[in-house]
């Protein structure tokens, strides 16, 4: 009888062992898949994660997006540095003109010469800033290769033509 009991138990034990080993292999495959996903994703998106956290990440983005050489990047960075204080000054002028117009609109119940003048002033300052931005865009694109320069102007065009509206929204999809 003892002999028979061994005969009956062995297949069940072997089957259980086989199931356990199968599960272990499944777990191993799942763990390998998770590790592969994580490592690949982290490795491929490392530059993007770095750019988005860096203070000057947008310049690094410009370098990568428009395939700038070191020399091109140095010149563009220099231009960007020179342009930044002018941009700040223009920003200040716009803010002041906007505040003045805001004040006049609130103070006057009808359209007065002061309101009109403030509006004209506001538009003049904005026009001046647009002009300066356009000049900067042309100067930067001139440093790039013709293809990348065109792409860069295309990207910046939406900011000048219709600021605040996305590029996709400005350029009609039907007209394309």
């Amino acid at each position, binding site marked *: *009888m003892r002999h*028979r009991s061994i005969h*009956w138990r062995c297949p*069940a034990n072997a*089957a259980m062992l*086989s*199931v356990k*080993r*199968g*599960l272990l*292999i*499944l777990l*191993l*495959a*799942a763990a*390998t*898949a*998770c590790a*592969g*996903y*994580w490592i*690949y*994703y982290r490795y*491929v*998106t490392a530059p*993007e*994660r770095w*750019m*988005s956290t860096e203070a000057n*990440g*947008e*310049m690094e*983005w*410009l370098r990568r*997006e428009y395939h700038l050489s070191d020399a091109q990047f140095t010149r563009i960075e220099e231009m*960007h540095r020179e*342009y*930044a204080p002018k*941009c*700040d000054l*223009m*920003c*200040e002028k*716009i*803010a002041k003109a*906007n505040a003045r117009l805001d004040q006049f609109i609130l103070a006057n119940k009808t359209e007065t010469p002061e309101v009109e003048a403030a509006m004209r002033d506001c538009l003049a300052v*904005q026009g001046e*800033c*647009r002009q*300066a*931005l356009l000049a*900067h*865009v042309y100067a930067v694109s001139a440093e790039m290769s013709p293809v990348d320069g065109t792409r860069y102007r295309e*990207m*910046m065009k939406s*900011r000048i033509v219709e*600021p*605040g509206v996305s590029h996709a929204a400005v350029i009609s999809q039907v007209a394309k």
Partner: protein
Amino acid sequence: MNTPDPDDLSAKLRTWTVDPKVVPGSFSRQVWQRIGARQAGREEAFWPRAVQWLSTQLVRPRYAVALVVLSLSASIGMAHVQAQETKAKVGKMMEARYAASVDPLAMSR
């Protein structure tokens, strides 16, 4: 002493059947019969058999390696698609950041 006719003996032997009766006290035999019946029932069920079959296949090195390679490839493919989406999203964000850094109107808002 009469010796039986060999033909008669052969005929009797051919018709003779053994019908062993289970001894009433053979408890262990009945237990084993039940275990056997239950085991047979379990073996006939679909899922246990499927799991059993899968396990048997998986423990073969060839299939185990194939499974690991396949799941790794699938996960890397998914990671690639996800990474492209992330790159495009961050690209748009950086584009807006760059444009804002040179656009006085955007800065004044």
